[in-house]
């Protein structure tokens, strides 16, 4: 692939594979995946269940390392980093949003949002101010002293989004963020993503819902661990046109 703008890309994935060994058998979850994502993009990763979306997400989020291939994040080769270095990368570059929210149940919304700042070593006072500001962004400042079990599903996901935003990472990684929400609440969250995209954030969204992917400016379709389509969200999600070969573009 001829990518002149390599340096400007936030994410550069080259021929990544991820092989799991299960009872002597090899499961090839990713079989040579390549693409780039620029700053400010909103990209959906779609595909059927078992196509490798979550595996890719974990690699992009530096929770997992590829078996082979090269992954450059914000100019740094993270595919060979140590565990401690990856922890720092996760803290500084990535904001996770999970399908099951993954809030700490015994801590308040505020404390949950503060967590990434704790691991960055930010003093308590500044932490609190920044976490409050992040909660304001998701319109939850009035709920900041509530525990997750006192919040609705949509509110929990907004707390999680505030937590992902608070440390100002290079990108937000969301794995089926609306999967556990009813459609109206899901719509709220999608609108929030659209706003965040408007504000210049880089968003990578894993979903199996074509309708959701169709609203993203760009989508990458995985099938059996390979990229089978990469192009405008509507086209890739709804299977219109031949978007696979458009991958090199953008």
């Amino acid at each position: 692939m001829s990518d002149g703008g390599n340096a400007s890309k936030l994410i550069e994935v080259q021929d990544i594979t991820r092989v799991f060994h299960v009872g002597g058998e090899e499961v090839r979850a990713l079989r040579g995946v390549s693409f780039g994502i620029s700053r400010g993009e909103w990209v959906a990763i779609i595909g059927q269940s078992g196509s490798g979306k979550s595996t890719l997400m974990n690699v992009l989020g530096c929770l997992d390392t590829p078996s082979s291939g090269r992954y450059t994040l914000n100019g740094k080769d993270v595919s060979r980093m140590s565990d401690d270095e990856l922890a720092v990368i996760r803290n500084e570059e990535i904001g996770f949003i999970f399908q099951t929210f993954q809030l700490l149940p015994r801590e308040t919304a505020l404390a949950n949002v503060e967590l990434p700042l704790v691991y960055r070593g930010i003093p308590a006072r500044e932490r609190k101010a920044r976490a409050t500001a992040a909660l304001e962004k998701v319109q939850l400042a009035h709920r900041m002293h509530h525990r997750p079990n006192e919040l609705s599903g949509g509110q929990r996901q907004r707390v999680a989004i505030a937590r992902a935003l608070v440390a100002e990472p290079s990108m937000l990684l969301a794995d089926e963020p609306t999967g556990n929400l009813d459609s109206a609440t899901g719509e709220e969250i999608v609108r929030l993503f659209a706003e965040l995209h408007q504000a210049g954030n880089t968003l990578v969204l894993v979903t199996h819902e074509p309708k959701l992917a169709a609203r993203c400016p760009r989508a990458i379709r995985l099938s059996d661990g390979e990229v089978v389509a990469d192009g405008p969200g509507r086209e890739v999600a709804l299977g219109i046109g031949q978007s696979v070969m458009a991958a090199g573009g953008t």
Partner: protein
Amino acid sequence: MKLKLPQGVRVDVVEGARIAVFSLKANRLRTVLTTMGIGIGVATLLAIVGIIQGLNTSFHRQLATFGANTIYVSKFPWIIKGDWWMYRNRKDITLDQVERLRHAAPFLTALSPSVQRVSDVEHGGEQLSTVRIQGVTQEYLAISGYEVTAGRFLTEADDETTRPVAVIGTEVADGLFPGISPLGRTIRVDNRTFQVVGTLSRKGKVLNQSMDLVVFIPFKTFYSSFGKGRRIEIAMAVEDASKLKQAEDQLVGILRRIRSTPPGQPDDFSINKPEAMAQTYEQLTGALYGVAVGVGLITLLVGGIGIMNIMLVSVRERTREIGVRRALGARKRTIVFQFLMEAASVSAVGGLLGTTVGLGTAKVVSLITPLAADVQAGTVAGGVGFAALVGLLFGIWPAARAANLDPVEALRYE
């Protein structure tokens, strides 16, 4: 930012401590109760060690007052091993035997027969109860280690003429003659009158018995006043402690001859040495010490395994939390620290409770038994600190397990 510690370490310590406190405040009663075992183990260990050490030092101090060069021969041994009535069948020691021994054993530097009873002693309106009345001869002074502080000790003439004279210990002097000199005054013991001719130096307590609540009277005066039915003990001294062993061997032969013990029969008398008593005592407390330490260590081991178990449960319960923290940027060692701090502080609280309970028990024991439990603040601090240390030690494995969880797996854990 005014950082004192490197940032990473500061995060580990501050956040670890915060989570530990959080865990304590949350529903962790179960955990604290589990770790109480450790506290109790630590407390009993410390208390027993303290008691034994206290006993040892005081016993040594007390024995020092007896003199290391003394031997006492009696019908019953000081420390009875086996059946008491075995000794009962022995022949009594007679005054005649004492005299024959005196002549047969020139290596003794002092020898005195000794008989005693316990009585009330009065002077004027004052009365002292359970005073040891002891009949001895002149040479007893050198053997006993008392010193005469005023007047004189008993003499040979006192004994031969059965004079009603007495030399008294400090507690008797202070109790009956507060503020005045007892010399020349009289005391009454069971309706018999004795004139005080001397007072003795303070000797303190031996095995919780005062050595100063004592009245010495001439041996023969004792016989004529209180009858001859009492058991005679023979108190002896040799030149110095190095001669003790040799003297003992010779004494056995002489005594057997004097008492015509048939050959082949065991000795029908007991030779007691304060020196040997110290050794017996040390063996006894040494064994106790060993048992206490053993029991304490086993308790600690059991308690430690309890902590390990509860921490493994805690790690499992919080697998997802660990995954979340790792995803948000916690390093492995931050997680290790979190669980170590939790293990240590939970154990410390358990230790505090356990130490309180343990020492409370020791206190009760000391109230209802003669054991002197010495409850010190240092013991409590030691108990808490030691419990925390054990918690730390047994928390290492669970903490390492927590840190080594795969973040992806942890996040997926149900």
